[in-house]
């Protein structure tokens, strides 16, 4: 197994402390070392004050979102060697306040996301052939969104306007409109039919590129706009 020393240039900041700066660490990595593992190594062996957030290590919890070499990624599934750079720059996600080092305050994210009221689970489309087990009506699965905030970090409009609803909450809104499951979606459509809602998107589609979970928030925003465009034309022609 090949091993190599890789430099990590890590964003450092503590609330109430000095201005943000990058600190460089060197970590011995092999083919299987992920950025998250390297950061944990730094925390364990070199600087216990480095703060990061993680949980599952397999891209299903959405906790370890950060910017790696300027791209939004889940650190747990990015292999250091595959980045192909001698230095790996690691920074916290953009467009949410930094709490400490690589950890951002997710409150503004959940404030938006929860407003959509999207149920966590949906009927599974993957087991159509399977016989449903006794006691179950149907097989269910989790919604695609893992609430990682990567789409919000990547969005250029979130980077200019602190009150934009943003791609994650807009995508969640579309899921409710697409499949209301007993929820009233009309007030939600009104909510996003606003200057801080889906009309604010400028079709840069960075959210689609950043999403690790197949949500494709950009496509969902455009679906909302199609629905609202139809609604506006129906109103215009009195139907």
């Amino acid at each position, binding site marked *: 197994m090949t091993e190599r020393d890789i430099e990590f240039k890590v964003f450092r900041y503590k609330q109430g402390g000095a201005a943000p700066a990058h600190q460089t660490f060197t970590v011995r990595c092999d083919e299987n070392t992920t950025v998250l593992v390297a950061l944990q190594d730094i925390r364990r062996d070199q600087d216990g004050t480095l703060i990061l957030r993680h949980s599952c290590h397999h891209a299903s919890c959405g906790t370890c979102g950060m910017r790696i070499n300027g791209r939004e990624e889940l650190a747990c599934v990015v292999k250091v060697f595959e980045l192909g750079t001698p230095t790996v720059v690691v920074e916290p996600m953009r*467009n949410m306040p930094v709490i400490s080092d690589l950890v951002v305050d997710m409150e503004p994210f959940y404030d938006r996301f929860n407003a959509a009221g999207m149920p966590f689970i949906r009927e599974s489309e993957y087991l159509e052939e399977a016989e449903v087990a006794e006691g179950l009506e149907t097989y269910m699965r989790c919604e695609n969104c893992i609430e990682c905030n990567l789409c919000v970090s990547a969005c250029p409009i*979130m980077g200019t306007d602190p009150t*934009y609803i943003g791609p994650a909450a807009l995508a969640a809104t579309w899921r409710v409109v697409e499949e209301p499951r007993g929820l009233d979606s009309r007030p939600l459509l009104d909510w996003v039919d606003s200057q801080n*809602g889906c009309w604010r998107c400028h*079709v840069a*589609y960075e959210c689609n590129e950043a999403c690790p979970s197949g949500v494709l928030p950009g496509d969902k925003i455009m679906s909302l706009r199609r629905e609202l465009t139809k609604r506006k034309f129906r109103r215009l022609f009195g139907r």
Partner: protein
Amino acid sequence: MDNIQPTTDPVRPKAPLRSWFDVRGRSLSTLAFALNRLTAIGLTIYLFLHLAVLSLLLRGPEGWDQFVALAKNPAFLLLDVVLLFGVVYHMANGIRVALVGMGVAHTRQKSLFYVLVGIALVAFVVGAVLIFVE
């Protein structure tokens, strides 16, 4: 939307210009957006300059024909080429943004970009050659 928690970060203040135009490491669609915005600003300024220049027509043949002679200067023609690029790009990407933004063909927005901007680039090259040849 004053009831929503702002995403303000005192440590990293929002920087609109960097957010719109710093396309390093970003996708093709962000480049498309940045160019669209840049050409939009240029074309808006040009529209008002163009309207102002047209007032020369009110001064009769002397005023206008003098301007026409000036506009055939090579430096002016070079500006025309820049303008032509702005117009054809903004048109082509604008068609994509208008369609995609209304939820039409939005799942094929990248293909739409390649086709429309490809046509625009061909039109630009033909137009640029014509500007200098004619």
